[in-house]
């Protein structure tokens, strides 16, 4: 599904060049549930943006569902994003003057789906996420968990192959966080590849594969079978602190 090879990325501001990603090689198969972890500044958000075609990279190659993502026009990138990728953001990023239903239906609008059909589909997805009664509410009338569920519905509606989530639980309390994670796992079980960026170990522990970044490189990859060991090491780290 996703194949990264030797990805480099620098941010240039004035005369300073910040080398963020220093050769990332990574393969994620279809249907995997992956979390990206790492201290701040390790390049996890940058990686996610490159994966989501929101940002370009300087060196290397990136294949998404068989398409080489490189130097493509904004228009093509927008189409691919619409077809292949769903986004979930830490700050939900719902459009404030559209109600829940309209927010969920928006990706279909850009796909050119008729109004009636996309509203019907949007309602279906809201119902699946238990938000049917909230369809007509504006984002500021929803709780954080509800907002994130609306955002997830919006990410799901275009039937993407991959869902990218940037700190999806970052703005939620732990109870709601677990609810959202449960929801994401359910979605993953339906065969959609899920990649989340998080710094919370308990959230990462619910995924099947953890990619730890450090200074723009992959520090280690932990598979679910080794999670016990990971948890042990994690507690040890805490003890030393």
């Amino acid at each position, binding site marked *: 599904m996703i194949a990264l090879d030797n990805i480099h990325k620098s941010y240039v501001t004035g005369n300073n060049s910040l080398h963020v990603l220093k050769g990332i090689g990574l393969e994620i198969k279809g249907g995997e549930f992956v979390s990206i972890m790492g201290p701040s500044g390790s390049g996890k958000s940058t990686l996610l*943006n490159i994966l*989501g075609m*929101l*940002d370009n990279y300087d060196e290397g190659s990136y294949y998404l569902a068989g398409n080489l993502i490189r130097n493509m026009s*904004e*228009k093509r990138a*927008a*189409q691919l*994003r*619409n*077809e292949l990728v*769903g*986004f979930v*953001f830490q700050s939900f*990023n*719902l*459009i*404030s*003057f*559209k109600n829940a239903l309209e927010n969920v239906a*928006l*990706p279909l*609008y*850009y*796909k050119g789906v008729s*109004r009636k059909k996309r509203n019907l589909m949007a309602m279906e997805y809201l119902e699946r996420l238990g938000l049917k009664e909230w369809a007509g509410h504006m984002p500021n009338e929803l709780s954080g968990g509800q907002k994130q569920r609306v955002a997830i519905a*919006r*990410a799901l509606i*275009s039937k993407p192959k991959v869902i990218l989530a940037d700190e999806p639980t970052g703005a939620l309390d732990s109870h709601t966080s677990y609810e959202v994670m449960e929801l994401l796992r359910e979605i993953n079980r339906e065969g959609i590849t899920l990649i989340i960026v998080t710094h919370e170990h308990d959230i990462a522990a619910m995924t099947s594969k953890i990619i730890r970044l450090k200074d723009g490189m992959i520090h280690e990859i932990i598979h679910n079978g080794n999670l016990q060991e990971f948890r042990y090491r994690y507690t040890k780290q805490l003890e030393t602190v």
Partner: protein
Amino acid sequence: MFDLDLWKEILSALKKNRLRSFMTAFGVFWGIFMLIIMSGAGRALENGVMDGIRAFATNSAFFWTEPTSTPYKGFQRGRQWIYNNTDIAYLRANVKEIEYLSPRLFGWRQRSGDNTIRGEKTGAFNIYGDYPDYFKIDPWTPLKGRLLNEIDVLHGRKVCVIGERVAETMFNKEEDPIGEYLKVAGVYFKVVGVVHPETRINIGGGRKEETIMIPFTTMQKAYNYGDQIHFFSVTSQPGTPVSQLEEKLKTVLKERHKIAPDDRQAVGSFNIEVEWKKYNRLFLGIQVLTWIVGIGTLLAGVIGVSNIMLVIIKERTQEIGIQRAIGATPSKVILHIVAESVFLTVVAGYIGLALGVGLLELLNVALENGGDEIFFRRPEVSFKMAVAALNVLVVSGIIAGLIPAKRAVSIKPIDAIRDEGI
């Protein structure tokens, strides 16, 4: 294609910033409103003035006499002189460029006090002796009866045509003036016509409606003017500029009356062609000025729209970023912004256009009740101009939207999403 979502989006975005949308729209509204009002007012002035002279023969010139200004052939300067019948006969026979020639006598001696009497009614009117050709130069329409004709002049008939005001003053409403007699300065004349002036150019002063015109020959005999002529009008043959004829006639007249060829004062004349050109240039100038000021005002409005769009885009950077993250193509984003800007300018401009035209229409109604004397008539804007103004609006709306739209899509979606709206 009517895209409901596009319009919903535009309206909600504009509604979110009600006051600002309004102020911006007001700039455009005011621009187009002023353009329409100024252009309409300019046109009204033109109509008012041009209506008064349009029917007048544009190839006409007028001659009168002034005291000489230089001594010549034994005559002192300051000599009073006057045209006579032989001048007219000579000009008619020898100057081929003349189309119509119409001598006139001003009844100055007959003008004191109430000079017209009919039974118990009296009135003070201007009396002129005219040839029928006069009506071809300065047209009058007979409301009742007829104009003067060649036979009246030939036989020195004691007939007259009278202006509307004369008929109103000297006759009761139910009376028909035709065939009735008026005693004008001691002489009885039979009324053969009641006439209405077509132009507001007035030779001899006073109100044109208060005129009594009698045959020229009758006037000379009845009031002892001998063979004098006070004034004459000519028109040039087609193909001859009247200015050229004017110069030629002046030369001929100076020679006949022993006036120095370089005397610029003695032969008084006036040439409609020159005046006509002056008027046309004046009104062209007014229209050009109107457009310059109007377009300037409009431009200020459009710049306002562009400015406001920039601010809106800045505020909505994050939203645009989200839209692009979930699949909005750059062209779609540009379309949204441009449509918003065009919508704002066109709606505001259309309201300005409608109100402007409406106000002109109101003014028109008010002016129409004002009568003939007002030099301000039919304020109007041409359909062509309205369409041109609307085109300018749409184009400027597109430009006003395109600049911020280009900026909006030049920001990477990821930067846009991170933008905290600061």
